[in-house]
């Protein structure tokens, strides 16, 4: 895949997270315990595989702010 789709965790119940992608929300499984609500994550095959680092989130948000 060229680019994984990032989404924000908006809730976690047991090992299932609800991921907000902007216009859609989808469920994804969590296999590790270090994810929390508010994290931006990447999902592959309905499993959360990686947290988008905070500095990367900030730099993306900076790019968007500069578009205003």
């Amino acid at each position: 895949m060229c680019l994984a789709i990032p989404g924000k965790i908006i809730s976690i119940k047991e090992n299932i997270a609800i991921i907000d992608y902007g216009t859609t929300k989808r469920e994804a499984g969590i296999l590790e315990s270090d994810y929390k609500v508010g994290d931006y994550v990447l999902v592959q095959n309905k499993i959360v595989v990686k947290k988008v680092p905070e500095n990367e989130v900030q730099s993306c948000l900076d790019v968007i702010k500069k578009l205003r």
Partner: protein
Amino acid sequence: MIDDNKLLCAFLLGAYESGSCAVSMQEDEKGAAIKSFEDYISGEIELPIDNVSGVIEKIKDTKSETYRDYFYSNHIGRIVKETKESANQDFYDALKGNNILTAKVMQCPVHFYEVIDVHHGSFIVYNPLSKKNITFNISKGLDSPLKGDIISAHWNQYLEVVTDLPKLQSYKDKLANYLNDIKNNIKDNI
């Protein structure tokens, strides 16, 4: 201008180190692939065919005549196609309300920058997207640009000094249209 295989490895180095591509790979596997790209660029090994064959197939699918054609033309179409497939939505619908994805699809194509300052082993360019200066390191085996040169980069990886910019004008136009269309389509959520 560097040769196609070296350009391919530098492009993949940028993709893998961006943190946005090859996310399903194990860290040690990804680290080994990154090292193989660096080693190829520096001339220490033959082309690491196992680590490049996947993207070569993708490039062939786009009917690109050379890797260079893909990076400086058809890659944008691939970003749109794969984003739609991964999000299972129209491209612009996938971007609505998702500022992180929007920023990433804007950063993902190969961009051109003018070199404004040069240091030993690195150089500085102005990034009009983030409106900030950014520093690129020069991987061993890549040409050292001079102040005023136009260079290309993929994510945070410098690729090459662009010596055939007039030939790449259609890509510059395509990139500008792609970025403008994104801005226009997501203006309600910024």
